[in-house]
């Protein structure tokens, strides 16, 4: 799983792929129609590859519906990813300020931590002495 931007990029690429898939589906499975009295569906020989694989009208409709729904879902996913991009409210200056503040806070926290460690060592030493004293009794 990549970061949000990469996810978004992939989602958009998938959307584009879905466009192509939809196009292919319709192009491949539509029915043949006559537009004028002079048109006629050419008779294909047995060994000639078929141009279209016509689906039954309701199956074709159902396929279209499903593809369209997938497109919408993917588009919504893209929009969701856009609204969850990190730091939409921050400008570059805000970010720099935030980074500086955090740096300071980190320094303070580090000194506090070292202080606590030192205190811990002291108490440990004291406790050690007390325990030794008790053992001697």
């Amino acid at each position, binding site marked *: 799983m990549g*970061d*949000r*931007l990469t996810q*978004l*990029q992939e989602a*958009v690429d998938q*959307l*584009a792929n879905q*466009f192509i898939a*939809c*196009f292919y589906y*319709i192009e491949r499975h539509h029915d043949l129609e006559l537009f004028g009295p002079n048109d006629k569906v050419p008779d294909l020989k047995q060994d000639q590859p078929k141009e279209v694989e016509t689906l039954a009208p309701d199956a074709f409709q159902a396929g279209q519906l499903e593809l369209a729904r997938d*497109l*919408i879902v993917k*588009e919504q996913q*893209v*929009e969701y990813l*856009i*609204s969850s*991009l*990190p*730091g*939409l*409210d*921050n*400008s*570059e*200056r805000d*970010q*720099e300020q*935030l*980074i500086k503040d*955090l*740096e300071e*806070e*980190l320094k303070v*926290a*580090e000194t*506090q*931590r070292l202080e*606590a*460690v030192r*205190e*811990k060592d002291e*108490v*440990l030493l*004291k*406790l050690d002495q*007390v*325990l030794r004293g*008790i053992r001697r*009794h």
Partner: protein
Amino acid sequence: MAANIEEDSSKVTALYPDPPPFWKAFTAENLSQFDSLKQEYADQNGLDADSAVRIPDIPENLNYLQPPPEPTESKWRLFSEPQTLDEELQSLETAGIQRLGPLNETDKDGKHIDRAFELKRLAKSLLLNFLELMGLMNHNPTHGLEKVQDLKTLLLNFHHILNEYRPHQAREQLIQLMQDQLDSKRAETAAIKNVVDKAKRALEGLGSMEIPTAEPKEIKPAHGLTAPPAVNGTNDAGDGPYYWDRESVGWSSLDADLV
């Protein structure tokens, strides 16, 4: 020269290309000569032999033995691809793509809400344009190509805005990382303080118990182990048994801590 280039290009198409021409420069003689030159140069300039990377004014035939000079400008070629020191995002205009959104100035105070809004608009446009493409293919397939071009422009614009956002996200990730570090540091400090406080309390407790133990110390062996529990139930108010009671509690807590 032209013949040379043609020869070279024919070599590239061969299965295994020839080794680069400078392999012939690496003779044992040249290598030892180069080493001595390097040593000499290092001695002259008071450098360590390993830290002297390039020797100026080297004989022509030894030139291949040392690394090429650092690029003077921030541009160089790598595998015949031009490289620059600071990677800049190619603008849409230079790539020959129509810009659909407003030009985003790299304004330091600019918020990125607008950019997200722009992305959403592009996403919706993508869907709409695809619908239009489908309609066009239904009625007039010859115009389909233009719509496909529109879709392409939309997609490229989308990716461009997205890539413009990347530095922003990188900074955002840095902030997140620092925040996490800060949190873990503070948690560690708090945990240490907690343990220290506990230990201090235990020490204080021990201290308050130890002072009275000095007095009945001699009695302890006489009483034996059975004596304190026997007194426990009968009399808590008496001074002696009370101390014993407290001491046994202290010892058991110490035992628990030690185990």
